[in-house]
């Protein structure tokens, strides 16, 4: 458990990445000498103290200090799913693992930052449905409906299909593999790389081998190999998850390109 991660991209202010533990909070707004803020948003339409993020339990709460403006919290993976936090609302709980907080401005452009809540817990898939008292759970639980999970399944696919004990797909291969899925049409190579970083650094906290060892070359895939190895070893990705991927072009499920008849 590591709380939440806030990322403010460059443009609305300086690029900032903040990590907050449970009970910690961060204020956002235009800021001033007397009103310091942790996240400085440079836009004349935003108040000096626009709002506050506080981490509680495995999620976070958003307080809207504006007296006139509503803020939107979007789930970028939720096909339009969003929450509206009305003016002066204190501590609205945000249920999304990924969120984009959008503040209105006078112009066309909006100001937005991202909040990640990697601590969400999912019940163990192998559990026999005992009571939800004090269950033994997998410490690294993944949202099997998230795009990062699709990326992970795609990474593990060759190993799951016993095609190659070593091959781990490259980023462009993953982009191609997932392209047919709804919600993944816009997936860029950069997004895939961020999903892999998120899985490795926030969700599983793998202790990956050095990325720049001799012979590793520029592909920097030590992290991917470690991620695939651990996801399979500890059952985070299993054979049944292959059904999440689109059928392979030109071949039946499970048919490896090299083994396909009539090729």
């Amino acid at each position, binding site marked *: 458990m590591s709380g939440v991660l806030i990322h403010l991209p460059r443009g609305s202010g300086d690029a900032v990445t903040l990590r907050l*533990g449970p009970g910690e909070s961060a204020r956002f707004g235009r800021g001033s000498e007397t009103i310091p803020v942790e996240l400085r948003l440079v836009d004349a339409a935003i108040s000096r103290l626009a709002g506050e993020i506080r981490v509680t339990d495995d999620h976070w709460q958003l307080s809207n200090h504006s007296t006139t403006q509503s803020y939107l919290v979007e789930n970028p993976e939720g096909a339009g799913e969003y929450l509206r936090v009305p003016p002066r609302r204190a501590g609205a709980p945000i249920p999304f693992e990924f969120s984009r907080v959008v503040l209105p401005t006078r112009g066309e452009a909006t100001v937005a930052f991202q909040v990640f809540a990697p601590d969400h817990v999912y019940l163990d898939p192998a559990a026999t449905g005992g009571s939800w008292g004090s269950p033994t759970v997998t410490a690294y639980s993944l949202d099997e409906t998230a795009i990062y999970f699709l990326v992970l399944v795609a990474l593990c696919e060759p190993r799951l299909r016993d095609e190659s004990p070593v091959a781990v797909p490259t980023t462009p291969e993953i982009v191609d593999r997932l392209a047919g899925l709804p919600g993944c049409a816009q997936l860029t190579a950069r997004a895939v790389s961020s999903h892999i970083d998120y899985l490795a650094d926030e969700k599983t906290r*793998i202790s990956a081998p050095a990325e720049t060892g001799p012979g590793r070359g520029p592909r920097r895939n030590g992290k991917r190999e470690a991620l695939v*190895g651990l996801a399979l070893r500890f059952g985070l990705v299993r054979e049944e998850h292959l059904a999440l991927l689109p059928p392979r072009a030109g071949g039946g499920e499970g048919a490896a390109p090299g083994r396909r008849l009539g090729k």
Partner: protein
Amino acid sequence: MQRPADASGSDRGEPLPPGHRVGGWEVTGPIGAGGWATVHAGRRAADAPPDPAGGVAGDPPGEVALKVLPTGGLAPRQARAIAESARREVELARRAGHPRLIRLLDSFVLSEPGHPYLDGAIVLVMERAERSLRDRLATPVTAAEGARLITGIIEGLAHLHRSGWVHGDLKPDNVLLMRDGSVKLADFGLATELTGTHGTHGYAPPMGTLDYLPPERRRAPLGEHGIQVRPSADVWALGIVIHEVFAGGAPPFPGATAMARAAAAQEYAEGRAALRTDHAVPPFWRELATDCLAPTHESRAAHTAETLLHRITAARAAEDPEAPTAEGPPSAAQASPHPPVRPLHRRARAALLAGAAVCGAAVALWPHGARDAAPAAARAEASGSLRVFNAEQGCRNRTDRNPRCSLGLAIDPLKAYTPDNVVATRVWDGEVLAVDCLLPRGMPIVDESDAVSVEWFRVRLPGDAARPTAWLPAVRTKDRPAVPECPRPTPVN
């Protein structure tokens, strides 16, 4: 988006009907389901051979618990994880049996082609407990009962750690109470054998129960072999359990859900919130729980199951010489169908403790005017020397001065051996200390191998000008130097 078929079929976790036969055993009723297994009450089937080949030696009791770990319908990797968990249980039972651990009587794999769900299921046959500590906590626990329960848990934990294992999932659900009231630890599916060069840690699958995971686990990296587990993780869980026992099952961290409490524990560990224990927890146990809940592995490492057991033994001897040991009164132990392995030894120890405490009480009546000879003695030549001995195997003949292997010296050998009665200087196995004299009757000390002694040596502390001498329990050396008897020390404070 395509989704796999919902594999959480309703037959998973479905209890077996009474009368169902598994191996040489017959199901008599359901006990519960949780995690990956269902547990049933059972008994030996009437027509089964009296003692199965490969069964654990000893008379199998009439009533048993049958833990069924189904693997049917699972992906191969998942099934392997379950088999691995069962393997840990069997391995631990084979190598580290103890009266404080639930006995494994038999284990086998079911072959039931007619039941896809049962085919390939692993069955662990264990001695039958009356109920779990979790069930017991539904009704209030008296201070004496709580003390007995916790002492039993710590005895089991001390044995596990001494044998080189970490439980990994200590919680009231996994502490079982037998019909005679004795306490036994159960569920070793996440137990880990300590490896590493110095046997300080092991690797376990990244699993656990949120309410009982130490704060450092939430940032622990997942490595090739799993997650690093150390005995201090069990000590943290023990701290939670101690609190729960006295506070009617309430954990020390606030929150309506396990996630909320885990977050509160994290806040505490990061120094942003204080530990607020329930006032129902008696002061001695509150202090013990607080030490178990030291926020980091490093700060917790000083409190091992062994040192906690010493503190309990010392406190009990100081307070109430008639207090029963965790085994219960001797009559109860005799009535039990499974008497503890070393009943004579236990009773002997209790008698010794009681005797020693009576001596201590008598001594306390003596006038305290006797002059403490320590400063004068420190200036004189030492009378002899001794070599420090650590009963923990892994701590012998080492040169690294591992804090986990360090031994303490008391300030006052007549007072309870608690942290405020220990000098700052630590000693290690093999170290040679100068000795002034021997105190024949001090606070009784039990070491890791259950050896008891009330004798103490007054030893020199070379590097400590403020405190030239301290007291070493005689169980901490194998030597018996010919030294004079110490004068009765003046009580400190």
